[in-house]
């Protein structure tokens, strides 16, 4: 049985459209205009035990709404979901003991008290035996290197330290399923890297199922083999990271280190030039033409070094989002006027 099974899941919000000004506010008392926002639109998805899946999409794509539906925080308009055999929005305690949701933009620790107090509260709420609680807490604190911060009020912690504490609070009951909503947002690269390392090690050790949303491609590259791209509430692509690069990036980036300036001048006329930083030159080549172009250059010029690489993941994903946006625009245009 899959750990997460989503069938035809939809969630639509009715959003009040308020016009500017006092008169519009008064008019709004008598006649209100609403717009329907299809936050999640007929999603189907299956996630197996132990998978680490990235949920990617532009802002407002429906990633967080999907995680909230899977956590049972909100109820859907239609469709069915089973997580570990439970329907999330029935909010059974048995289910709520098996998963955790961490939101990078929200704080669930007591602001004025040390994180230790929140951990202790979670211990009692999740009925974790004292020995197990202390063992898990110490292990997690050691992994994240925050043992010395346990007694410090949460409001006095840095953003990175606070996020580490948030993760510990969420993991104190050893959830089978973990929903992470932008856990590295706003963190510096060092803190981001630490959290990536921790999540990777933790997932390998516990073999739990993790759904991660993030706008940092480094997170995705470091952690997830499978990527689900969601746009306008619908799943646009579901596959491996390599698949996405192959499918959505038609080019390779070639960097040559040339032996002399004459070669540099000759090759600089090549189409799709990215940059020249003598003696290096960087350009794009169609995937299928890499071999042909390189053999031609090598036959005519002396080259000291060659690097052929995929475009940066950010660029590929940005292309995917643009394509998804374009597809949605066309679909909206072809809709009959009702």
């Amino acid at each position: 049985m899959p750990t997460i099974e989503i069938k035809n899941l939809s969630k639509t919000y009715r959003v009040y459209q308020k016009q500017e000004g006092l008169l519009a506010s008064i008019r709004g008392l008598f006649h209100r205009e609403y717009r329907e926002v299809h936050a999640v639109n007929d999603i189907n998805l299956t996630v197996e035990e132990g998978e680490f899946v990235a949920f990617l999409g532009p802002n407002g794509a429906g990633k967080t709404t999907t995680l909230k539906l899977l956590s049972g925080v909100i109820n859907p308009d239609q469709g069915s979901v089973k997580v570990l055999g439970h329907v999330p929005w029935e909010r059974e305690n048995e289910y709520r003991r098996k998963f955790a949701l961490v939101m990078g933009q929200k704080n669930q620790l007591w602001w004025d008290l040390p994180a230790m107090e929140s951990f202790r509260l979670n211990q009692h709420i999740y009925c974790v035996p004292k020995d197990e609680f202390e063992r898990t807490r110490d292990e997690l604190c050691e992994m994240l290197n925050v043992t010395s911060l346990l007694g410090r009020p949460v409001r006095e912690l840095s953003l990175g330290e606070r996020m580490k504490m948030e993760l510990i609070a969420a993991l104190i009951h050893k959830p089978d399923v973990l929903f992470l909503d932008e856990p590295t947002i706003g963190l510096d690269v060092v803190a981001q890297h630490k959290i990536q390392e921790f999540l990777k090690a933790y997932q390998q050790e516990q073999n739990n199922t993790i759904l991660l949303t993030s706008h940092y491609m480094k997170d995705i590259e470091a952690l997830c083999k499978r990527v689900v791209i969601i746009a306008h509430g619908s799943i646009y692509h579901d596959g491996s990271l390599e698949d996405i690069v192959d499918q959505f990036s038609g080019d390779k980036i070639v960097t040559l280190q040339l032996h002399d300036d004459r070669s540099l001048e000759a090759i600089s006329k090549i189409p799709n030039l990215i940059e020249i930083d003598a003696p290096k030159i960087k350009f794009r080549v169609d995937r299928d033409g890499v071999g042909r172009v390189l053999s031609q250059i090598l036959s005519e010029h002396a080259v000291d070094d060659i690097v052929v690489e995929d475009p940066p993941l950010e660029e590929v994903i940005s292309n995917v989002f643009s394509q998804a946006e374009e597809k949605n625009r066309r679909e909206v245009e072809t809709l009959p006027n009702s």
Partner: protein
Amino acid sequence: MAWAGMNWGLFKIIYRHTGEIGLDSGWHEHEFFIFLGTIWIINSLIQTLFMANAAEFSELIRTGNLDFALLKPIDTQFLISFPRINWSQLPNGILGVMLIAHSLSELMQEREIYFSVFSLPAFLFFIGCGAVVMYSVMICLASTSIWFGRNQNLYNFWFYITNFYRYPMEIYQRSGVGMALWGTFTFVVPILVVSNIPARILAQPLGTPWKPWEWGLAAYAIIGSIWSLMASRWVFKRALKSYRSASS
């Protein structure tokens, strides 16, 4: 405490002009101050235990932080009802106890008051019923924040509603509008019953033994408490279904 003092002073002035509120109702000065002390105790309990939490609940809804309460494997209504205790509201309850003790001793010098071993437990039990009903009203009011997005008027609503339960129910029984209010706050939202019954146990405005309708009202106070709690639970769960969280 200043409010309690003004409240007491106001009724002290009123009783300079009249001996009784309501004709043959039995609510003379000492009986009424026992009633007033009872109200202070119930109010103090609500404001100490629930008021700040209910206001916080509205804020949790507005900011979307209710998400985290919904994730916890514990009853959500319990979790949002008791996170903190506002000790600063407790002195009004203590003043209520003192006012009752003083008024009762004065009353006992005037006439005979019947007490049994059940009187105090019964008084406390019906105070508890009162707290349950008022808590239920508060949860219903706070739950509306889920539909309205925000509810900054919780304290105002609370003030309007509690205005009706601060007086003996006899004052409503003289006119059509009064009877409508009496019926609404007795049978629909039974706040009148739960303030009147515990006060009647101690003050005995119509003497002893209790009249049959007083016994009926006491039984209805228990039923009303259970019904209020069930209704608030229904409203709370119903509201949660409409919860839409907030953007992150």
